[in-house]
C-alpha cells in the first residue's frame, strides 16, 4: 500500500500523532475510571462489569491494541530511519541544546519503558479480567492478603487492584511506569499538535503548558490510586472479598 501515511515522513508523523492522541484519550478515560475506586469500590466494579462483558468492549480493546501496535511499530520504523539518516560517523562531542527537553530526545526509550510497564499491567489485570471473561471462565484466580488462594469474579477489579497494590514493589514498579509516561507525555502531547500542523509561536507556550497539565494529571490520577490502594489495601480487600456481580 503506497500512501502518504506510509511513505512520507510527514505522513508517518501524522500516524504517530493520531495514534498517540487516541492513546492519550484512552489513558485519560482509564484514569478517570480508576479514580472511582477511591470513592466507591462497588461503583468501580460496576464499570468493570459493564465494560467487560460485551462485544463492543472487545472491539474497543482490539482497536486500542491496534493503536498501541501502530504507535509502537511506527516508532521503530521512524527511529531506524532516523538512525540511518544520522550517518555512520557520529559526533565525538554532543551537548543538550538550550530549550530542548530531555524527554523529546528520549521518546523511544521512554516508550519502551511504557510498553514494558503495559506488559506487566496486562498480566496483573487484563489477563485476569477481560481475558478470563473472553475465555468464558467464571472466575479469576486471586490470592488474599494472607497468602491464601481464592477465586474472584473477573469483574471484581477493585479487589484485584487492592490486592496488587498491597505489595510495595508493585507500587514502586507502577510509579516508575507512570513517571516514564509523564516524561513521554510532556513531549508527546504538544508534539502531536505540531505533527498534525496545529501549532505556532503563539500556541507553543499554551500547548506545552497543556502537555504538562495532561501529563501531570495522568501521573497524579494513576499514582494516587496506587498509593491509596497500598495504604488501604487491608480495608479494601476485606470490603470487596465477598462481592458478587449485580448485573
Amino acid at each position, binding site marked *: 500500500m503506497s500512501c502518504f501515511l506510509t511513505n512520507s515522513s510527514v505522513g508517518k*508523523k501524522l500516524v504517530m500523532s493520531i495514534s498517540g492522541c487516541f492513546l492519550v484519550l484512552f489513558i485519560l478515560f482509564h484514569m478517570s475510571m480508576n479514580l472511582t475506586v477511591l470513592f466507591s469500590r462497588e461503583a468501580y466494579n460496576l464499570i468493570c462489569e459493564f465494560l467487560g462483558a460485551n462485544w463492543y468492549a472487545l472491539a474497543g480493546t482490539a482497536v486500542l491494541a491496534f493503536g498501541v501496535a501502530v504507535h509502537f511499530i511506527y516508532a521503530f520504523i521512524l527511529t531506524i530511519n532516523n538512525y540511518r539518516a544520522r550517518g555512520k560517523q557520529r*559526533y565525538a562531542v554532543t551537548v543538550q541544546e538550550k530549550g530542548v527537553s530531555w524527554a523529546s530526545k528520549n521518546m523511544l526509550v521512554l516508550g519502551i519503558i511504557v510498553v514494558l510497564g503495559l506488559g506487566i499491567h496486562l498480566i496483573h489485570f487484563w489477563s485476569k479480567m477481560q481475558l478470563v471473561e473472553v475465555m468464558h471462565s467464571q472466575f479469576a484466580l486471586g490470592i488474599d492478603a494472607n497468602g491464601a488462594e481464592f477465586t474472584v469474579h473477573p469483574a471484581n477489579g477493585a479487589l484485584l487492584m487492592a490486592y496488587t497494590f498491597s505489595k510495595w514493589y508493585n507500587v514502586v514498579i507502577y510509579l516508575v511506569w507512570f513517571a516514564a509516561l509523564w516524561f513521554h507525555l510532556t513531549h508527546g502531547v504538544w508534539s502531536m499538535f505540531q505533527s498534525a500542523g*496545529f501549532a505556532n509561536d503563539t500556541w507553543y507556550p499554551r500547548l506545552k503548558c497543556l502537555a504538562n497539565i495532561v501529563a501531570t494529571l495522568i501521573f497524579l490520577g494513576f499514582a494516587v490510586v496506587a498509593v491509596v490502594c497500598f495504604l488501604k489495601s487491608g480495608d479494601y480487600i476485606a470490603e470487596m472479598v465477598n462481592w458478587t456481580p449485580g448485573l
Partner: protein
Amino acid sequence: MNFTLKIWRQRDAKSQGAFETYKVTDISADTSFLEMMDILNNNLIHEGKEPVAFDHDCREGICGMCSMHINGHAHGPSQAVTTCQMYMRKFKDGSTITIEPWRSAAFPVIRDLVVDRGAYDKILQAGGFISVRTNSVPDGNAIPIPKKDADESMDAAACVGCGACAATCKNGSAMLFVAARVSSLAKLPQGRVEGARRAKAMVAKMDELGFGNCTNTGACQAQCPKSISIAHIARLNREFLAAKLQD
C-alpha cells in the same frame, strides 16, 4: 590566548578520518574563530603540512557557507550566530576545542570539515520556487500583502541554508530548512498558487535524499544561526497534509 584544537581530518569521502591535535598560541581575544583557523593553517603550511579544509566565504554570517561543529554545537557555543561570527573571547584561554564536520548521512564529507550540501539544492529544485517567467508579472503593488504576513515570510526567508538544522538534529532531519522555504512562500499570495504542489514535491525529495524524520525536539531551532522557528515546520506539516488530503 592559547588553545588546543582537536580537528577532524579526512582526505576525501572515501578515506577514513580521524582527529588530530594542534596547538595555536598568542591568539587575540578579538580574533574570529575562522581567523584563528587561518592562523593555524598558515602555521601548518609553513611546517609543510596540508592546511585544514573548511568552508567559509562571506564571514558576515549571511552566505551560509561556514559549517563547523564546535564543542558539540553547530556553529559553536554562541546562540544565533554562524561560525564566522564566533569570536575567541567566547572560549576559555587554554581550553581544548573539538571541531568536527557536519555529520549527517545526506551530507558526505568532501575533505576535513567540508561537507557536500548539494542535497539542499536538490530539495529546492524540487519546488522551492514560484513559477513566474521573467517579465511576465504584475506591478509590485498590485497585490497588497499584510505587513504581518510579509514579516513572517521574511522570518522564514532568513534561512542561509547552512545545514546546521540537519547537522544538529539527532534524526538528521532537514525539516527546518524545507519548512523555512515552504513557509516563506506559503505566507505570500503569489506563493499560494503552487502551495500544494510545492509542499508535496519538497517533502518527497527530502525523504528520497535520506534525511530523517522530525520528532519535534526543537534542537534545530536552538542551533539555527538565524533562530528560525519550528512554527514553520508546523506550517509545512499543515501544507503537506492539507495537500495530501485533497488528492
